[in-house]
């Protein structure tokens, strides 16, 4: 319909019934398989599922650590299973993809201006990567030393 309904009315009365019949295509359920960018977007969103599952595993691990003794021992045994190792490898890949996409997108949301110039996006993303490296190294060192 045109924005002014009275125009449509005028057209109808002066020229007969309107022949307009706008066609609205339906979005297929597989829309995200049609373009590489859409597929990668869904992969990025799915990373959160692996992160959440890991958080639950970490929580359970903390509970077992708190109980100690046999409970913690059996937790370690299940961590050594091929299923657990496999899961952690896959989850680590997805988590890494989350980190990379997150750091690369941060400069878009966080624009820091100095006068007329923008802080270069590479600098913002870059400092995130550096923080990632430093914090990861620190964590690994602290836990393995203990």
């Amino acid at each position: 319909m045109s924005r002014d309904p009275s125009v449509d009315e005028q057209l109808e009365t002066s020229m007969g019934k309107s022949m307009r019949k706008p066609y609205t295509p339906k979005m297929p359920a597989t829309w995200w398989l049609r373009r590489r960018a859409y597929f990668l977007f869904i992969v990025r969103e799915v990373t959160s599922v692996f992160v959440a599952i890991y958080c639950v595993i970490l929580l359970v691990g903390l509970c077992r650590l708190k109980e100690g003794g046999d409970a913690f021992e059996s937790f370690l045994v299940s961590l050594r299973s091929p299923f657990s190792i496999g899961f952690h490898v896959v989850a680590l890949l997805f988590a890494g993809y989350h980190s990379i996409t997150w750091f690369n997108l941060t400069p878009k949301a966080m624009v820091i201006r100095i006068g007329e110039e923008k802080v270069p996006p590479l600098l913002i993303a870059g400092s995130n990567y550096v923080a990632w490296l430093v914090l990861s190294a620190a964590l690994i060192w602290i836990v393995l030393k203990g």
Partner: protein
Amino acid sequence: MTEKTITLEITRYHPEQDAEPTFQSYDVPYREDWVVLDAINWIKDNVDGTLSYRWSCRMGVCGSCGMMVNGTPKLSCAAFLRDYYPEKIRVEPLANFPVERDLVIVLDDFMAKLESVKPWIVRKEGEEKPLSEGEYRQTPAELAKYKQFSMCINCMLCYAACPVMGLEPDFLGPAALALGMRYNKDSRDQGREERQEVIASHEAIWQCTFVGECSVVCPKDVDPAGAIQQAKVDSTLDWYKALLPWSKSQ
């Protein structure tokens, strides 16, 4: 010497007789310097005068000729035949819009969404400067804050690229939100509070899931995705500030 040709497969839709769109193939002369719009114009002039489509400046500034070229939203005046030759080129109307006829889409909804963000300088009551006091002055730094978002030519390629647009018809969309940010960030404007009613609503920035394709297809590097994320940050800070006991009540 036989002339080189290239095949264009174009959507045809006649509302008065068709139940749904179909495709029609045309062989057009291939020229190194032709764009898809040139090919379509040649078809209309020489083969099939009934083919309907929008175009105007043919140089990428008016925003009229947006179409899907091999599944990607493009300005047909900016899509060179040589980038596709010798493969077939599929030309369809912009995705996520109702189709009026052939390559012409219905853009009333888009226009209404643009209007809804009040895309003009809003001055508070009593703060409009009379002409005698001269113009509103702005430093280059103040201009830089919104300039990128002001480059939009309303070509709607971003709406065609955005999957949320296809899934949620009420979504305000990239161009409208970037336009809202263009005015919110303009130092001469005082209308941010008014615009926030629309921009910070559920159908607006909060529907966006930062797919980012809008910015990828934008022919003017407006970066609507960036505009929306910045709007989310601003709106979130607003929201938390409103919780503080000493803030003005809404």
